[in-house]
């Protein structure tokens, strides 16, 4: 199946191969997840299918290349996940509180801030992380500007908002991507 | 190949070949056309033997063809008129459009009529009947846009008749398991009484349509009037007799076994009588020769129906003899009209006049045929009429005698009008250049006229085949010769009592005619309209001396109540009503798809509600 987002820049062969391998790896892992076994037939089929698929999807699947597998990046990735999970749990308790007693003072509003992240993928991860953390919901990202629905607006100032909402994540993400 | 089959095939092949021959040469086509009629006719009279059957099975249905003495009589009429009219057609159709079409349908019509007469089973009968119908239908609609309604009317009534017949046929099949006519006739006495009544009635409806019996006659005047005249002579002269043919068979073979047969006969006789009266009155009112003759035909057929429905031996004889005579003189008369139309371009009495000098031979034909029509003694028409009155009186149908006499008298009026309208009276500038009709048209006309004279003198020529036919049909086995009962004929054989007298009258008549004609030719004096010698008065310029217009106005005013609303009108109203209803029902198809879906759901629910009742345990 052909898939050509025309807005993408032509890629160098090296990047292509690197990305292809990365995709292959990731898709094989996903396949193993799907099948849930390491059965030989399944694994072989998975490798073949993932290979073909990553070859065909090379221009689409552009999040990352083999560089992601560098130990340092993996470490930050792990750290990011932990930070994220903690934030998630915190946010849930916060939400539970609000849900159970809606009388709590809220001050909803939409704030914006700018992010340093370059890749779209990283922005997406940041937006998702923000959505899952306490009291915030990503509404849109236009260029570098994030628009966030904040259930308890502490400050309309972009700088402050950035600090409150996204700084931790962004610092980690910059290191990963 | 059996000759019967061969005759039919020859007609069919002839029809197709003739139709296509026009592409190469008109003359060749004409020749082929004449041959296509005459060769089978010659074959018929020389090769076909009585009671010889040819049968085969088609689609599991056994079919049989053969000639019986009874159909032989009708075949004579069909072929005689068929050949005469064919020759006439060559002249008549010369230079007209759709000649191939005409020839094709003409030949098919003749073939179909012969086929009807040959059929020994109902399917062949019906098939040929229908071919006859649609071929003649195509003739009726041949002359352009204004004949369409007439054509549809003809077809609808034909269809009513044909389908009644078809219903009878399938009911017969349900009883006998086959379609053979003889088998049915044999089985008939043992049928359930309801079927014994239903089947003949259905068949009679079918035949009555072709015989133009009131109230199924409404198609006839228009169709006769608007077909090409060359065809109408066959149409009215022979084709309508197919109805008589079927009726006689039903009367003789079926109704005689039925207790209610007498009643049915009387009803039909009265229907015939009403037809005769009303059609005659209408004929009088016409100013167009074609229409006049058309109504006249219907009226004459009414007589014939009276006769065959009464069904005493003499009446039957009278009816069939009149049928034959009618074929001759009406065939000739339509040819006359055709000739006039061909030469003048119109058939309107109010326009055409004084043709006697321009078209003397045509006039002669008209004169002889009109005399035959009116039933004036020397010619064959008289014999039929005499026998009819005689048989009606002898069988105590006095009322019918009165009716028949009334309409017969009234027929003089239109006969006179016909003769006067075209040929006598003032000659007009407009028609100064009219020539006599071409020879190909004159010969058949005159031949038919001669036939009328001949049959007046030698009625046994045709009475014998009638006699044989009726006897073979099982009409009577006690009489050797059915005409014995008539006072008109002697007791010892086939001589007519009045024959010498008839010969004498005829001689005087012909001599006078010849004398008058030749004298006038020399001594004709043309007078201007201002010539006071005409009647002692000076006519004004605008006064029409020919009396063609409003000819019978006083008479018509007297009979107006009878003619006020034609039966036609009721049919038209009925048809319009039906169409309105149909137009309303088709609004079921509202155009809204959702409504259709709703129908489906309603239908489903109705079926569900009905469930047990609908499908039974």
């Amino acid at each position, binding site marked *: 199946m052909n898939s050509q987002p025309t807005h993408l820049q032509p890629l160098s062969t090296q990047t292509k191969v690197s990305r292809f391998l990365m995709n292959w790896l990731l898709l094989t892992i996903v396949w193993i997840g799907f099948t849930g076994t390491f059965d030989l037939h399944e694994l072989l089929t998975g490798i073949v299918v993932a290979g073909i698929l990553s070859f065909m999807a090379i221009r689409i699947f552009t999040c990352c290349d083999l560089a992601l597998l560098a130990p340092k990046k993996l470490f930050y990735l792990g750290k990011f996940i932990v930070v994220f999970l903690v934030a998630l749990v915190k946010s849930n308790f916060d939400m539970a509180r609000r849900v159970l007693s809606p009388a709590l003072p809220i001050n909803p509003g939409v704030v914006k801030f700018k992010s340093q992240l370059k890749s779209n993928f990283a922005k997406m991860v940041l937006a998702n992380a923000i959505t899952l953390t306490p009291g915030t919901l990503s509404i849109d990202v236009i260029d570098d500007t994030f628009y966030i629905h904040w259930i308890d607006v502490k400050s309309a100032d972009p700088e402050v908002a950035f600090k409150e909402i996204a700084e931790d994540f962004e610092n980690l993400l910059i290191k990963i991507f | 190949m059996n000759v019967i089959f061969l005759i039919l095939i020859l007609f069919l092949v002839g029809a197709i070949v003739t139709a296509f021959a026009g592409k190469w040469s008109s003359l060749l086509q004409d020749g082929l056309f004449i041959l296509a009629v005459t060769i089978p006719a010659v074959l018929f009279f020389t090769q076909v033997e009585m009671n010889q059957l040819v049968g085969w099975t088609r689609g599991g249905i056994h079919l049989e063809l053969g000639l019986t003495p009874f159909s032989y009589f009708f075949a004579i009429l069909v072929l005689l008129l068929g050949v005469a009219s064919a020759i006439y057609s060559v002249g008549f159709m010369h230079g007209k459009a759709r000649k191939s079409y005409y020839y094709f349908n003409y030949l098919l019509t003749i073939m179909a009529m012969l086929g009807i007469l040959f059929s020994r089973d109902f399917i062949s009968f019906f098939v040929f009947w229908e071919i006859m119908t649609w071929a003649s239908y195509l003739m009726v609609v041949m002359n352009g846009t204004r004949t369409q309604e007439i054509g549809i009317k003809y077809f609808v009534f034909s269809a009513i008749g044909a389908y009644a017949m078809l219903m009878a046929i399938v009911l017969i099949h349900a009883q006998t398991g086959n379609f053979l006519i003889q088998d049915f006739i044999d089985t008939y006495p043992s049928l359930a009484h309801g079927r014994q009544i239903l089947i003949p009635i259905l068949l009679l409806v079918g035949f009555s349509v072709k015989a133009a019996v009131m109230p199924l006659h409404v198609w006839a005047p228009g169709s006769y009037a608007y077909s090409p005249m060359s065809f109408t002579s066959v149409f009215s002269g022979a084709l309508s007799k197919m109805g008589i043919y079927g009726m006689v068979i039903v009367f003789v073979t079926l109704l005689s076994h039925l207790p209610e047969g007498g009643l049915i006969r009387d009803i039909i006789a009265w229907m015939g009588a009403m037809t005769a009266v009303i059609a005659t009155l209408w004929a009088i009112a016409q100013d167009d020769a074609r229409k006049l003759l058309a109504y006249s035909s219907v009226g004459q057929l009414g007589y014939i129906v009276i006769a065959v429905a009464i069904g005493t031996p003499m009446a039957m004889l009278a009816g069939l003899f009149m049928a034959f005579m009618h074929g001759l003189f009406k065939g000739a008369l339509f040819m006359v009209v055709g000739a006039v139309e061909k030469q003048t371009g119109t058939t309107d009495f109010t326009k055409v006049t004084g043709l006697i000098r321009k078209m003397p031979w045509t006039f002669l034909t008209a004169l002889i045929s009109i005399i035959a029509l009116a039933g004036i003694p020397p010619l064959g028409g008289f014999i039929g009429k005499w026998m009819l009155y005689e048989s009606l009186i002898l069988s105590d149908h006095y009322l019918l005698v009165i009716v028949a006499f009334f309409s017969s008298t009234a027929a003089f009026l239109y006969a006179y009008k016909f003769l006067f309208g075209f040929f006598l009276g003032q000659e007009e500038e407009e028609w100064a250049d009219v020539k006599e009709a071409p020879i190909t048209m004159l010969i058949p006309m005159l031949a038919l006229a001669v036939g009328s004279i001949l049959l007046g003198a030698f009625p046994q020529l045709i009475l014998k085949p009638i006699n044989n036919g009726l006897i073979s049909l099982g009409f009577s086995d006690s009489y050797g010769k059915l005409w014995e009962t008539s006072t008109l004929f002697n007791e010892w054989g086939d001589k007519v009592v009045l024959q010498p007298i008839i010969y004498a009258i005829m001689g005087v008549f012909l001599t006078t005619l010849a004398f008058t004609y030749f004298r006038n030719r020399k001594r004709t004096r043309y007078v201007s309209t201002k010539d006071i010698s005409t009647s002692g008065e000076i006519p004004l310029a605008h006064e029409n001396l020919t009396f063609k217009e409003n000819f019978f106005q006083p008479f018509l005013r007297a009979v107006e109540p009878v003619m006020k609303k034609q039966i036609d009108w009721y049919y038209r109203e009925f048809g319009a009503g039906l169409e309105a209803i149909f137009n309303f029902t088709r609004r*079921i198809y509202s155009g809204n798809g959702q409504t259709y879906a709703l129908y489906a759901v309603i239908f489903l629910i109705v079926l569900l509600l009905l469930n047990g009742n609908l499908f039974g345990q």
Partner: protein
Amino acid sequence: MVGSPVLFVAIPLLAAFLIPLMGMIWKEFVRIIPGLVLAYMLVLSVSLIIYIQSHGTIVEVISGWGPPVGINLVFSPFSGALTTLMTFLGLLVWLYSHKFKRNVDYEPAKKYFILLMLMVTGSVGMVLTGDLFNMFVFIEIVSISGYGLTSFFVRRDSAEAAFKFLLMGAFASSFLLIGIMIIYTQLGTLNMAEIAQRMPQMDYHMKVFSLIFILVAIGVEAETFPLNGWAPDVYTQAPGPISAAMSGIVVKAAVYANIRIIYTMYDLQGAYEYLLIIGLITFIVAETAALKQERLKRMLAYSSIGQMGLAMIAFGIGTKEGVYAALFLMFSHAIIKSLLFFSGSYLVYNKTSKYIKHVNGMGKYLPITAFLFTLGAFAIIGLPPFMGFWSKLALLSAAADSNLVILVAVILVVSIVEAVYYLRVVNRIFFFKKRANTKPEKPTINAMIAMLSLAAIVLVIGFYPDLVTGLIERAADDLMDKGRYIGEILSKN
């Protein structure tokens, strides 16, 4: 054996999937391949018909599982006769369209011919299959091809017609599924022969309910009143040859399904009366609605519906004679109506509105086409000696033999209406003056061949009905003999 019934489905499908590829090579392929396939199907069905004369019904097992486990195809005298008829008409429709569609773009042409081929295939599948649910699948194949073909002309009201068709078709398929599921839950099988065998065990109410749902569903395709609202629209808006194919092929298949279900699967006497009554109503309503139509194809459509009503009446009589008559009617109607649609399309060729008045005077400009239309008109109203007469006679005889005198009378009376509206058109063709703004279009040579071959059949069968009556009789025998059907199929296991 020269082939097997499964090829009736396999080969067209193979071709259908192949055509888009071949079209990339040479555009003409999209027209040629369907023709070849249809011709192949015709040859196949003729040779199988000959084969079964001596070897008896073919029961073709699919996926190696004998009935009732697997799906099976049954090529019997009954289904075989219909298959031959359908493939023959399919081929003619193709022939007729082959050049007629030359002026349209490549893409529409490709779609047209693929859909046409699959519509024929689906109809053949409906007739051949011995499995109830498989029949449903084939019905859907036919329906969807029908929707696509109906809306072929983009600038007309064809989408409206197709939408109505689709709406009714969707209702039908839902009802059909309900009916099939009721049967399945009661008998545990979908094989028609086994259903027939077990039917006596089925609870009476369930039997009736299932039959009702199935009858309503199939009634939509079979154009029974009041489920036929879509039909006139579709016939009017679809391309002429497609109208012919709808009335000659699709509806025949639906009637087959209807009949196979009532005659073979169910043992309910009342179902015959249902056929009789509904057939009669359909016949009367359709013929009377046809009388006042202003559009030629719409008139032909109502006439078609009416004829299908007649066939249902004949089936409803329930005797062997009735079945014989019904099959004969279906056969002759398929041929004649195709002839009428073929020739009629040319008589009103240049107008999108296709009013009857546009045929005025065409007899002069298109003599052969006009003659063929007239022949068709005469034949369809049952004038002898054309083909339609024999079938009508068979129907009337069958009715009379079963003492249904009133029925005979009603049919005949309504037939007069039919005669009237056809003759009006014929009169216009030959005796009216051409309208100034109509432009006669000469039929292509292919169309002419298709029409002439149909006309030849009408004439030849008219004079020599024995050519088909033997086949039809065997088919009728086959349909009536339920025990043999069950035996033949279930013994294949």
